[in-house]
């Protein structure tokens, strides 16, 4: 796992759970973050699901795609953290309002 991918995984683990949120948290460009999220999803480190239409419509905005850590993702992150000492460098955890989750 590359350093950048590990950073993105760490961001999701820290509660940043959709694309632009991760972009803001990591400071990485969208062209890096989105393919990395898709790779992590393909590899089984993240699972993804769409937000309910009703919630999005109420806001009003397009529905978001939420990413969540899997067991394999947590194991992979622990391994990467050992390698990159991510613990020190990770962005601070941020509480997300549960209501926005589908």
């Amino acid at each position: 796992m590359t350093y950048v991918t590990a950073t993105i995984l760490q961001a999701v683990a820290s509660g940043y759970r959709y694309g632009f949120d991760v972009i803001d948290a990591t400071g990485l460009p969208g062209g890096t973050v989105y393919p990395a999220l898709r790779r992590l999803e393909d590899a089984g480190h993240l699972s993804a699901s769409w937000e309910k239409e009703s919630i999005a419509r109420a806001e009003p905005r397009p529905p978001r795609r939420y990413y969540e850590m899997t067991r394999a993702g947590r194991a992979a992150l622990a391994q990467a953290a050992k390698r990159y000492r991510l613990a020190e460098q990770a962005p601070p955890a941020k509480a997300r309002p549960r209501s926005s989750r589908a």
Partner: protein
Amino acid sequence: MKPHLRLIALLGLIVPRHLRAGWRQEWEGEFRYRESQLDAWERLDWRDKLDLFRRSTSAFWDALWLFRQQLEAGMFLDLRYGARMLIRHKGFTAAAVVTLALGIGANTAIFSLLDKIVVRALPVEQPDRLVTFLGGAERFPLAMSYPMYTAIRDRVPLIPALAAYSPRPFSLADGAAADRVTGAVVSGNYFSMLGVRPAIGRFFAPDEDRTPGTHAVAVIGHGLWRRRFGSDPAIVGRSISVNARPFTVIGVAPPEFTGTTRGTTVDVYVPTVMAPTVLPGWSRVLDSPNWGWLHVIGRLAPGATRAQAQAAFMEVAAELDPGAKPPAAPDPMILADRRPQVQVLDGSGGYREEVENLTRPLQLLMAAVGFVLLIACANVANLLLARAVTRRQEIAIRLAAGASRWRIVRQLLTEGLLLAGVGGTAGLFVAAQLTALLTSVQQQVTYLPRTIDGTIDARALAFTLVIAIVTGIAFGLAPARQALSSDLVSGLKSGVPGRGARGLTLRGVLIVAQVALSVIVLVGAGLCLKGVRALQAIDTGLQPSRVVTASFDPGLAGYDEQRGRRFVDAVTRRVAALPGVESVAWGEIVPFSDFFDIGSASVEGYRPEPGERMAFDFNTVSSGYFRTIGLPLASGREFTSADTATSLPVVLINEAAARRYWRGRVPVGGHINRGRSAEVIGVVRDSRVKKVSDETKPTIYLPLAQNRGANMTLHVRASGDPRSVLSRIRQELQAIDPRLPAYNLQTLDAQKNGSLYAERLSAMLLTLFGALAIALVAVGLYGMLSYSVAERTREIGVRLALGATRGDLMSMVIRRGLVLTVLGAMAGVAGALAAVRVLKGLLFGVSPTDPQVFVLVPLGLAAVALLACWIPARRATRLNPLAALRHE
């Protein structure tokens, strides 16, 4: 729409269709969020808008990633499906793969050979800056004396580095036995000028090539190191015996460097100042200004052209030797440095005189094999086109089931590539086999370029593979073109259309082209075969069938003249006593070898025309020589034991010399003068002792008893099988002196065949490629007509129902095949008439437009074509009319 959202919508087109909506939604979400963090769109200033647009471009990388993922997954599916299709249609796959393998394999093997012998540059630093020097208009390397070389070496600023070398045979001993190896006497700067690095040890230091006779050091070739010394790393510092003189090995040349003469592999290099010590009889070679023996190879100064260098070189040469004038009759073999005419040529490939006779035949073979590849490609194309017809229904179904056109095209492309890949891999195998065959043919013949090794050229393989892949793609797409251009409904209704077999279709054109190309190859093969037959049928004037030879160089083993004569006597006595030996004699020049001794002499009573060059071939022979090689005497007598060193000097001449210089006078009793006068005691019949195609030259035979031959060859006439005599001679020579290596140990017949190597190789390979071409054409015709019959099954059913006889159907199918063959043969004959011009000079005893060849080739091809048509035609006649009518 806002510009960044418009870009997202546009980029979405790259994203696979099933993911597209979600992808756009996710990215739109991203940008709406960004906007919400700013202000209402209308109130945003242009910098914010630009920033949003810039951010939207990063979506491109995301879209591209998804596209690539999809492509990779699709490719795997395509490959799997393609492999399944190829396995299912075994007949088609086998025909296409075998065709491609033969075409690719033959091309790779011949190109590798051509590249090694003709094209490839020397493995040295900046080979494009190297120059070689030819003497005047001759094709021989300039032969320069040592004083001339040392004087001119540093005086031409446009050629700042000039190295010299002279290839010489050496006798190499290490322990008891001695071997004859290829040696080279080289200047101290030879390796440094070329920029070659030693594999181990070092090369010559400047002071090792200054004082004559002081540094007995040698560099050995990588091949010799491996072969003779088992790649022993402790070779440096070891002592070896070169021409019976001890030398210390100081280094080993790298494996890729085999010297600067193409076609030879140098085994031992010694410095020029050691020449007088190591070369017997050459003690004055370093002092004589008239002894031309060194070839030179130089490096051009940056920016200098060869023409400038040539002018500068000749100017300095004229200054150094003001007496030099162009001789009335240029003699290529002597005093080359006295001729001011020098050609400075591109030296990137080194000197080529050893491979000159192979260059054109190889180029010819390359053209032939290129034609075979074209035929092979046309064949594969035809097979793929024929299959395209049968796949229309399959493609129509896939289209109807919702496959995109691009998906279908990609699938067919993958199949084409897969076929090319399998064909290419099999081609590699064929190339390896063919290269091994060529190498073994080469090793059976004596004096061939030894640099032909069994490796395959990667560039050649890549080139032919590219052709195969292009063919695979171009014609693999044919079904796509047909299926995508026709309407879906008719494709679904009937995969097999009832038309397409008449008129000159693309497949027909391909067959015509194949036949035409194979006629050209076959005509070339026929002419070369006839030429070789004519060469072999030439009466050489000798009876070589039961004669064996063995050559020696006693001087190289440290023998003086006395000891040499004792050796000759001992060998004569012991070999003559062997069972099965009829007669024994010695001669300096081995018939059909490329050794010769040219010189001039004056003839008593003959006044040469102004400028006429009295050139003779010389051969020093013992008594009994003519009887042994079977060359009859026309008049006078042979040398006998009465002709001794102290008796009257005598010579024999041949009929060509008598015709030219005696002109009706009786030669016997006349005199010739070559330093001293000698009486002509007899005339022998003419013989073609060089290349059998060369006219006989005026020749003077000198008696061995009165002249010293440099390296003498034993000639033995056997009463029975010459090969059993050969092995007995070998044992006998070992017993006499194991340190004196014998070479040319073979029958004279083998020597004659060896001298025709280039012609025989061309004829053999052209015949092989001709046979390949016929086979490919037959497969192509058969395949096309088989598919044609399959396509027209229903039509044949209708014809049968309407009363057509089996004969009618048979002739209908055969006629189509034959019409294409005749068209192709006509085009081929026209093409061959234009192409045979390149054979001029390569053919002997046969006209390039030999009517027999030009008639037999098209007829033979037509016969094969008839057979190829007959099988599908017979299948058409055996169709059951009812089943044929129901056929869809």
